[in-house]
């Protein structure tokens, strides 16, 4: 199932950890914290791919998020490793701050057919974030066809992929492996690199670990990665955007916008120039886009006057840009070439049940 791989892309070197059963290795920042990214992902000893599944190396903790970023329907596998003695101090309402030397990975892949449960995944890339003395540094590694090794891709690339989605439709994303500089397009707050996923409310969920299912916050605490966390039932929990049992329509739509938009639209992120703030905690309707005219949106305004028009998703620029896939118009700006139909529905439903009107 290689749609894009060069035929010669066969493993040339068995990097540490790259062969699954190869000699044990020890996770580390591998020099990336000094600004020198290793050429192969195996050097971090964080993950390998075995039988179509990403496998964490010994001492590496996998995790998932309640409502993740959408990336063309890619499946994702996240891991974290903290240096010996390192610990995160629990905060209920902000991103976790990790100790210097921490390594986070996120692997992106596509099952050839999403209707086949538990089948092998074609892993495309593993993105690595390393906490250096002066902040986070990141880059991506692109897997070879045999998943023996993933090589650094500082410049990124666009890949023409194909898969069959859960409804049986063939999807053909122009999938973005971001360049190193593009990492900062999302992972930035007022110009400084940041991590995005690990917040208490995102991690407050169960994960099926090899040794059993456990709440992620509880496990991180038990393993000593996290200090000061309350029992999970006393910690905030972000709704799962497409699971009505986790929150009402508004809460789930806001959770989706939090995860998919607010890394830029938060007042300090890259979209600070727009005045549109999509944090789940934002309470000012105007900042949320209600009857707010677009700023510098150009043709993405699409003939509409406001970001959000109560009761009218079809007149709301926010919905239009979530549906669009053209590069100037699509939001988020990077990493989405397909419409996330399920999310558009949730956000549209949220707008539909708003009361009020715009002039």
């Amino acid at each position, binding site marked *: 199932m290689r749609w894009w791989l060069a035929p010669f892309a066969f493993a040339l070197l068995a990097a540490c950890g790259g062969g699954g059963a190869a000699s044990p290795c020890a996770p580390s920042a591998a020099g990336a914290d000094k600004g020198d990214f290793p050429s192969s992902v195996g050097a971090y000893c964080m993950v390998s791919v075995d039988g179509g599944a990403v496998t964490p190396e010994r001492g590496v903790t996998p995790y998932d998020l309640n409502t993740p970023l959408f990336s063309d329907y890619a499946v994702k596998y996240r891991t974290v490793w903290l240096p010996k003695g390192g610990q995160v101090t629990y905060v209920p309402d902000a991103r976790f701050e990790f100790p210097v030397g921490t390594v986070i990975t996120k692997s992106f892949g596509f099952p050839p057919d999403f209707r086949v449960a538990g089948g092998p995944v074609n892993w495309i890339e593993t993105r690595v974030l390393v906490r250096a003395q002066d902040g986070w540094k990141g880059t991506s590694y692109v897997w070879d066809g045999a998943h023996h090794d993933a090589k650094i891709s500082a410049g990124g690339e666009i890949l023409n992929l194909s898969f069959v989605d859960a409804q049986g439709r063939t999807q053909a994303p122009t999938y973005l492996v971001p360049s190193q500089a593009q990492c900062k397009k999302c992972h930035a707050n007022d*110009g400084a690199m940041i991590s995005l996923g690990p917040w208490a409310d995102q991690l407050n969920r169960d994960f099926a670990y090899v040794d059993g299912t456990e709440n992620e916050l509880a496990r991180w605490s038990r393993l000593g990665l996290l200090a000061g966390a309350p029992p999970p039932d006393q910690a905030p929990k972000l709704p799962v955007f497409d699971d009505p049992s986790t929150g009402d329509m508004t809460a789930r739509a806001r959770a989706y916008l939090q995860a998919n938009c607010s890394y830029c639209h938060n007042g300090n992120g890259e979209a600070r120039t727009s005045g549109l703030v999509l944090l789940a905690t934002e309470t000012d309707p105007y900042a949320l886009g209600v009857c707010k005219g677009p700023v510098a949106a150009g043709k993405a305004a699409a003939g509409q006057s406001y970001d959000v028009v109560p009761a009218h998703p079809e007149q709301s620029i926010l919905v239009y840009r979530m549906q669009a896939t053209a590069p100037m118009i699509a939001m988020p700006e990077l990493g989405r070439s397909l419409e996330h139909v399920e999310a558009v529905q949730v956000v549209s439903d949220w707008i539909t049940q708003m009361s009020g009107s715009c002039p």
Partner: protein
Amino acid sequence: MAAACSSKSSAPAKNPLCTGSGRCVTFAKGAAEGDIAGAFSTVAKGDAIVFGPGTYAFTNQLALGTADGVSIVGSGPDQTVLDFAGQKAGEDALFAQSVNDLRFEGFTVKDSPGNAIKTLSVTGLTMRSLTVTWSGAGTPNNKMDGAYGLYPVQSTNVLIEKCTISGASDSGVYVGQSQNVVVRDNEAFQNVSGIEIENSFFADVHDNRSHDNTAGILVFDLPGLKQEGGHSIRVYSNTITHNDTPNFAAMGDIVSLVPAGTGFFVMANHDVEIFQNTFDGNDTGAAGIISYALAQMPFTDPNYVEYPSRVYIHGNTYTNNGTKPDGLNQIGLVLSVGLASYPGGHAPDVLYDGIVDPNAPPGPNPMTICVGEASTTTVCNAHFDMLDMTTLDITKTIVCDASPYACTLPPLPAVTFPGLRP
């Protein structure tokens, strides 16, 4: 295809474009996109990235890594072309953020699906001898062409000079929420707006040729933004001619509200000086001084001031303006009603919308709008504040009398910043 100049063993003649204090990475025609994007991503302090002659095609946005003192240099805008017609990701073709002392010089950016070059939070930005264009420029079907050409935002100490921008479906040059800005010796044509300064402080816009756009030069201030209350803007010695291209901006975009045939608009802002410009053949009118209220867009921002004040327009040359206001635009349509009744038989050269701050002290000129023009220049207050919105009959409200505005304001100081040559 990347070759570091300094690493060549045979000590070749140094590429004269390699002027930085750091490494110099050169690319020649045929260079792989991934190598170029990798070089952009991994720049270090003082580096230069130099393009030889040729066309370079891209499928992804070209984002710049975080390093100060970087130069991106081509072999001249007619020699080096960065072609983004095939760009699949990113709102901007070239993007840089949060660095100091960045220079783009000597190349063309062509057919970007969105903005051509955007910089966010750059201090010390030079854009020199660049061409930005879209293949649809000047054709009736260029609605989908890009947005902004050169687009610094929340940047400081910005110099844009000797650039040529055409075909943008929003503004050719757009400087937003920035401070200490010089835009000079550029040519902008066939854009919706030639040059726009928005929510910015301390800008000199001079010696530009802005022609055949929908609007020549705009100085705007919008609500709800991090930096607002635009002020200390000088617009002088520009040639602003024949900006009569039908408005092709997307509806909903603020510039879509601007009538074709506009020479200059200042909207909101305070302390703006417009002088020694040449206005010719702008069919709706040469210069407008207007409030955001005219856009009829709601806002909730308590800090935003929607009225222009302390605007001084003087010593400009006006010929053949206002002869055929844009009938497809509400402002243009309203103006065209009374065409025969205005002095000189054309829409005013200097048009003030007359919408004033209700809290301003009463008087004939509460917002201190000063006009020092030749007696042949028609100066009118349209009094949109009193316009009957059912009939829109402007002839009932417009007053063409310059005497309330016969004041002067002290000249605004020239913009200066480190490294700026006169």
